[in-house]
């Protein structure tokens, strides 16, 4: 297979030394004497073209794909340039920091970022703002929220509360026996939805009504596995909280395998078109729709306005959330799946 080298290992060090030296020399040679620090975004230009950097959590989650495509479309429509970057997994703080740094170097005047972690990217955001770049948090808040110029996001606590209130309404006074399928431990959005749900249904984290819980990273296969295992221990559940729609699909598969779909109400959050179809087909009772397309468009509009006039938005802009269900319950405002299919995101 491989020919083993019989040479003196010492020669490796030497030759690589040469290589490194050559590379350094060639790099330094062309560099010349540019020593002026240059971050393109530092010149806030009125009447200029918007150059926008978008940094999302991952490229794999369809939600962020929808967000990116909406931003891309709006930018093209308004004649702005947009460069999309992402971390490689949920929690890739280093990757997001690197993306922001590279975008600054590229000379963007606005950065739209969905921070993986509410505190993980604060330093680089501060740096960017010091250079005169407008930074907008998209979908997820930073902690503190005023680390960015403005936030365009779903109020995830409210969305969780809506899911909780809906599930409570379906139970119609029966005491909840609940399973919770959570996302990634410590992630901001996941925590907000979880806490909101508990507020909405009227429970606390240490309540005995919670028969089991599992972190499933928002993945369908992990959710199914988690739900299967939890159901092994507690069959008399009547409600399941899910962080997002892939999680709800996993929970549904686990329930169907045990023939429990009739007695359990599953609530979810997201509003992807697949999720709305699932609700229409009765796989789960309701999903709370959020509006990433609107979120991305508003943020790109703000970036274009900033490049044109220098005006920055500020504060938290809730882009709204709506319960989608064909089985409305009293006291919870909702829309049916026909409306949902007209307003959903993704495919």
């Amino acid at each position, binding site marked *: 297979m*491989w*020919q*083993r*080298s019989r040479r003196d*290992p*010492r020669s*490796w*060090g*030497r*030759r*690589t*030394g*040469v*290589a*490194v*030296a*050559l*590379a350094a020399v*060639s*790099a330094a040679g*062309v*560099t010349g004497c*540019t*020593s*002026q*620090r*240059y971050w*393109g975004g530092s010149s806030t230009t009125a009447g200029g073209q918007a150059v926008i950097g978008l940094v999302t959590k991952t*490229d794999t989650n369809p939600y962020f794909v929808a967000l990116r495509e909406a931003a891309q479309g709006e930018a093209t429509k308004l004649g702005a*340039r947009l*460069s*999309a*970057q*992402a971390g*490689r*997994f*949920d*929690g*890739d*703080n*280093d990757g997001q*920091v*690197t*993306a922001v*740094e*590279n*975008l600054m*170097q*590229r*000379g963007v005047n606005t950065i739209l970022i969905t921070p*993986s*972690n509410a*505190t*993980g*990217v*604060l*330093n680089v955001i501060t740096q960017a703002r010091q250079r005169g770049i407008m930074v907008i948090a998209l979908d997820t808040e930073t902690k503190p929220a005023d680390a960015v110029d403005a936030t365009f996001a779903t109020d995830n606590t409210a969305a969780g509360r809506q899911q909780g209130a809906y599930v409570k309404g379906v139970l119609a006074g029966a005491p909840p026996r609940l399973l919770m399928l959570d996302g*990634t*431990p*410590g992630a901001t959005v996941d925590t907000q939805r979880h806490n909101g749900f508990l507020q909405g249904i009227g429970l606390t984290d240490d309540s005995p009504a919670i028969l089991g819980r599992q972190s499933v990273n928002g993945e369908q296969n992990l959710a199914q596995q988690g739900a299967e295992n939890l159901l092994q221990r507690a069959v008399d559940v009547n409600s399941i909280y899910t962080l997002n729609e892939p999680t709800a699909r996993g929970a549904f598969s686990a329930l169907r395998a045990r023939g429990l779909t009739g007695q359990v109400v599953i609530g979810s959050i997201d509003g992807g078109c697949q999720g709305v179809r699932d609700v229409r087909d009765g796989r789960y009772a309701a999903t709370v729709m959020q509006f990433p397309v609107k979120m991305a468009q508003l943020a790109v509009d703000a970036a274009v306005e900033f490049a044109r006039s220098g005006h920055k938005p500020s504060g938290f802009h809730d882009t709204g959330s709506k319960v989608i269900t064909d089985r409305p319950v009293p006291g919870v405002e909702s829309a049916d799946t026909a409306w949902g299919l007209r307003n959903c995101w993704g495919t």
Partner: protein
Amino acid sequence: MGAAKLLGDVMYANRTRADLGEFVLRTPAVGPAIALAVAVVVFALTTNTFLELDNLSLVVEQSLVVGTLALGQTLIILTAGIDLANAANMVLATLLMAKLVVGGTPGWLALLAGLAVTTAVGAITGGLVTRIKLPPFIVTLGLLTILAAASRIYTGQSVAVSDPLLSWLGTRRYLFGGIEVTNGMTVAVVMYLVLWYALSRTGWGRHVYAVGNEPEAARLSGIKVRRTVLSVYLIAGLVYGIAAWQALGRVPNADPNAYQTGNLDSITAVVLGGTSLFGGRGSVLGTLVGALIVSVLRSGLTQAGIDDLYQNVATGVLVIAAVALDRLSRGRQA
């Protein structure tokens, strides 16, 4: 001492310039160095922001964490091993250091505790590999799962770090009126030079190569194989502790979900640097070049306005090309 040696090496290169082709074919780490130089030139020509001194220093800064992980990884791969758990080990140490400091422990003590933990994990890995003769792949696959879970058990939340010593490696200075360097760069350079020297100029280094090349032959020639391999895992563990310090310098926020692909990123850097996954062949300076290539690509392609999915494609293509080049050159040689 390192500088004088490098100077000698450059003169050595001049002598062999006549048969440069031969030189490239016989020396795998030269291929990556040329690739790096080509990438730098291409980005210098196609963007007007890449070839700024401060961007170049930024590229170096961005490669520090993976570059340090890859340094430990190189040692282990040289012994024909592999470490899938290095980033998980590092992340656990970042959490430990951060939580200790938040709990009132002085920074230096927290740092020592972090180094102790990563070195201890290195000792466990090395012990299982050398005493029970388990394949390193299996041992570190198991440890990867255990350490990732341990981090989440230890703290489900990320922990912000405000201690000046723990984030000291991220501190910036300006040399010669404008070249930005961080303390992390200095530490990384020192580590690379020390290990380069140890591997290429000491008996221990020769033993490491010999063990990776042909353990049985090494044993017969009187090398204490188990002790050498164990020492490699211990040193790698210590290096991962420094990587944890680098990570806090870069992002002063310890996060159990961070660096999930750090193990594979470090292997990518090692492979791009021309070190053979079969052991006994390669160098830490090649790894340094490998780590830089990944950062240069990411930075340059971003500034050329290319989205990150294509950046990942480019990195993957390079990995395969690097190994193919290596393989072809060996075929030619044989």
